[in-house]
């Protein structure tokens, strides 16, 4: 008889014995084999040793007081642990989930910082470009304004000259006060007398004008003509009777050269 096969059958019968389904014949075979096979005999002994008591038997066999002593023991041990427990705010034991969460948070923070830094750098670069553009635009605007201003002055001068000249033609005489009032209606920066006209006026006026006028006229800067505002100031600074009349034909003659 092949011993190995018998031993395999023996193991199956051992399982049947454990399950309570082994027949008397099977039990006899099992005993017979164990008498001739020391290893299977030991297996049977192990089986009998381990199945000597059922779980219910063992529970019933728990010595008196053993089960009742567990809770007081647990409670006392927990009290000791609580009294010895250090500050656990930074203790990660039992809070293993904190580690991956903190790592994820740190990573997210690092990524967010990187994104913010990149965006900041990009914005700064854009700001520099925009600042350069704005500076260029401002320079261009200043140039444009300067050119426009010059053109406006020329245009205004023409308009002003024509305008006050037309007004003068409507009257034969005009007092100094009326002349000042007429000039105030003209834009202050508008050139009302060109350089040549101003020089002619100064030359003529110096012949017949009162002494106070001569001084005032000599102080006029005629490098780029006389503006309406300047002429008003000159008229107001003259120490003369405001109602003194001037012949408009003479003034027109001066203007028209």
């Amino acid at each position: 008889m092949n011993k190995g096969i018998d031993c395999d059958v023996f193991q199956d019968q051992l399982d049947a014995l454990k399950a309570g389904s082994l027949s008397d014949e099977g039990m006899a075979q099992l005993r017979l084999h164990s008498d001739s096979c020391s290893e299977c005999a030991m297996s049977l002994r192990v089986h009998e040793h381990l199945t000597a008591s059922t779980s219910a038997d063992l529970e019933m066999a728990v010595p008196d007081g053993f089960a009742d002593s567990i809770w007081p023991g647990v409670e006392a041990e927990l009290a000791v642990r609580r009294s010895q427990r250090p500050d656990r705010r930074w203790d990660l034991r039992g809070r293993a989930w904190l580690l991956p969460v903190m790592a994820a948070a740190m990573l997210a923070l690092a990524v967010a910082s990187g994104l913010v830094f990149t965006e900041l750098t990009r914005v700064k670069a854009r700001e520099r470009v925009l600042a350069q553009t704005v500076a260029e635009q401002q320079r261009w605007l200043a140039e444009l304004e300067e050119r426009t201003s010059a053109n406006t002055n020329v245009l205004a001068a023409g308009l002003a000259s024509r305008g006050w000249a037309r007004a003068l033609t409507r009257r034969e005489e005009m007092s100094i006060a009326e002349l000042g009032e007429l000039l105030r209606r003209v834009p202050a920066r508008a050139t009302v007398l060109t350089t040549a006209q101003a020089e002619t006026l100064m030359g003529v006026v110096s012949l017949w004008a009162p002494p106070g006028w001569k001084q005032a006229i000599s102080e006029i800067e005629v490098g780029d003509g006389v503006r309406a505002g300047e002429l008003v100031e000159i008229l107001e600074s003259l120490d003369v009777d405001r109602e003194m009349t001037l012949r408009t034909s003479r003034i027109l003659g001066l203007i028209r050269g």
Partner: protein
Amino acid sequence: MCGVRGSGIGSKMVVDNDLRVLAIACRDGDRRSYEALVNSETRALIAFAYRYTRDWELARDLTQDTWLKVYERIHRWDPTKSFRAWLLAVHRNGCLDHLRRAWVRYEATPGDEAMEGLRSVSGDGNPEEELERREFHERLVTVLGELSESQRQVFVRVDLEQNDQQEVADALGMKYTTLRTTLHFGRRRLAALLRSMEEAL
């Protein structure tokens, strides 16, 4: 307290749902529920540990350790699963740790000295028979350490804990036939090792 003292892990006197309710309250910090759980399941846990130790005092100490672990780790229990199964898993790990310590002691100090370290003197019945049973159990536990991991795992669950083979196969994710083969080889190797040890004594 909804449990009945001495109900046991295999018993249906305390249904899993009652345990779950207690365990959830315990997890939320209810001390009375924790006490109720301890009083409900302790006797079964001591009996379970006794299968490993054949020593009631050791079984009691292992059970107390298990309840302390449960107190610290109950937040790891998934309330959608059986509390009893989780409790048993915690307890089993504690008992296996005890066996591992015994194996380490045996490797460090083989022979009578190691046996003496595992020995306990308490017990009922015939003192000589009791001593013989204990010595045999100590040898059994010692040679368990010589089995392969899978053989040991299957032997412990099926023969030591006396669980149903199909249930163990399901729990370990093994085919039933694989479990039986592993168990049979494990038993025969264990028997051979025990025989060698007895012959050497």
